[in-house]
Every structure is written in structure tokens, then in C-alpha cells.
């Protein structure tokens, strides 16, 4: 009887998995909080230059990307409900939409950055050097912070793809949805960071 129960007992602690994910999210929040402090202090020191430089960013593209990320967050959140309702097909559709939104976000980002590059605006470019300290700092922070955020999007795309494959081959189902939950938490973090990046870089001028 002892051996039987030992075989049947598969140790799994979903609460602990979730807590671990949250601890990782805390470290991410502190990382970005540090960057926000750097941004605020430099903005305070170079108010005029930051204000003029921020006006060069397209509010329309920023708004579209914000809405895209919000939709993708909602769809992955809905997927965590769909998998519990044993609706595999709808889970896959929702995860597919999330992935598509992530890719569209990156495509927008690509064109946005390329536009800046064409105008000679990239870290340590000659044009930026001739523009003075404030602009150099603004664009340095802009490329670093949105770049770091974009890197998180790429990681998210990989993560959600793994979840999608595992839902499809039934190794992730209503009995074992914790990987989907944690990927969802990660994706919401990416959304959360963008919610603050958007007003700081695009809106406040």
C-alpha cells in the first residue's frame, strides 16, 4: 500500500509556483522602478530638452500600441478562464490572439525605431551629439527603457508559444494550468510596465 501511494503521489504545489512567479515580478518591478527614478531626475534637470524631445514621439503609435497590449492582456486572462472551463479550442484561439497582438506590437515598434534611426536619432549618433545633453539623455533612456520592454515582449512571445503548444498536445489542461497562469502573470507585468512607459515618454510633453 505504501509503494502504491508513493507512485500515485505526484508532488505539485501550484501556490508555491505562483508565489515564485510573483517574487520574480517583484524583482522586475524594482528594476523598472530604478529606471523610472533615473528618468524622473534627468527630466527634472533637463525639463525643456525632455519636453521638446518627447514631442517628437508619435502619440498615435503609442496609443495604438497601448490598446494592443491591453487587448492581449485581456485575451490571455480570458484564456486562464477558458482552460478551466475545459474549452480547449477557445483557449487556443485566445492565446493565438495574444501572440498576434504581441507580434503587431513589435512590428509597430520596429517601424517607430526605424523612423527615429532614419532621422539620425540613435544612441551616440552625430545628430544627437550635436543636440546637447538633454536630448542625448532622453533618447538614451527612450531606447533603453522601451528596448528592455521590447525584450520582455520577445520573451513573452516565446513563453506563450510554449503554452500554446502544450495546450494543443493536452500536456497543459484544466487539471494543470499553472504554466498558463504564470505566463499570464508575466504578460500582465509587461502590460503594467508599458502603462507607465506610455505617459512618461509619449504623453507628458
Amino acid at each position, binding site marked *: 500500500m505504501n509503494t502504491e501511494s508513493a507512485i500515485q503521489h505526484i508532488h505539485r504545489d501550484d*501556490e508555491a509556483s505562483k508565489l515564485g512567479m510573483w517574487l520574480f515580478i517583484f524583482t522586475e518591478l524594482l528594476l523598472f522602478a530604478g529606471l523610472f527614478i533615473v528618468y524622473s531626475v534627468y527630466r527634472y534637470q533637463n525639463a525643456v530638452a525632455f519636453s521638446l524631445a518627447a514631442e517628437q514621439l508619435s502619440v498615435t503609435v503609442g496609443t495604438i500600441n497601448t490598446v494592443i497590449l491591453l487587448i492581449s492582456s485581456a485575451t490571455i486572462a480570458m484564456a486562464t*478562464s477558458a482552460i478551466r472551463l475545459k474549452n480547449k479550442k477557445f483557449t487556443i484561439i485566445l492565446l493565438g490572439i495574444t501572440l498576434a497582438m504581441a507580434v503587431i506590437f513589435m512590428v509597430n515598434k520596429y517601424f517607430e525605431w526605424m523612423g527615429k534611426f532614419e532621422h539620425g536619432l540613435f544612441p551616440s549618433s552625430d545628430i544627437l551629439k550635436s543636440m546637447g545633453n538633454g536630448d542625448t539623455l532622453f533618447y538614451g533612456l527612450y531606447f533603453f527603457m522601451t528596448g528592455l520592454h521590447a525584450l520582455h515582449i520577445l520573451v513573452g512571445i516565446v513563453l506563450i508559444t510554449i503554452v500554446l503548444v502544450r495546450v494543443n498536445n493536452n500536456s497543459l489542461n484544466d487539471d494543470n494550468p499553472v504554466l498558463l497562469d504564470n505566463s499570464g502573470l508575466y504578460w500582465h507585468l509587461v*502590460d503594467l510596465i508599458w502603462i507607465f512607459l506610455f505617459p512618461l515618454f509619449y504623453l507628458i510633453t
Partner: protein
Amino acid sequence: MEDHSKSHIVPYKTYLLILAGLIVLTLLSVAITHIEFGELSVFAAILLASVKSSLVLVYFMHLKFDNKVLQIFVTAIFILVALVIFITFLDYNYR
């Protein structure tokens, strides 16, 4: 053992309503910053971002339905971040 099947299943409609709210808040923050309030529009943009992030944390990240320990943890970490920012600015201003 804690069983995930006991955990609360949030209806799709809740998520869609929150999404609609978030999009409205985004458009509102764009509209507000178009009007020149100076310092006030900075404050308004940050305030709206905070409201939006609370909605994401509470509903999308499921905190409303999670256990108390997690809720306390998350609240504590945001207080910590706020304190770090506050103390840095005190240091910066009175240096």
C-alpha cells in the same frame, strides 16, 4: 492540499468590461495631456496610469481572488517602491 479546481473562475465578461475600462482610461489620458495644464497634466497622466495598473493587478493578475498573503506582499512591494522613489527625491532635493 490546495487545489486549483477550487479557485475562482472569472467570467469572460468581467475581463471584457475591465478591458473596455482600460481603453477608455487610455483615451482619457491622451485627451487630458492634449490640454496644457503644465504640472497638473503630468500629475493627471501618472494618476490615470496608477488607476490602470491597479485594474490590471486586481483583475487581470487575479489578486482579488488570490489568498491574503499574496495581496499583502504585492501591496507591500508597491509601498516599498513608492518609499524608494520618495526617499531618492528627498535626497536629491535637499542635497
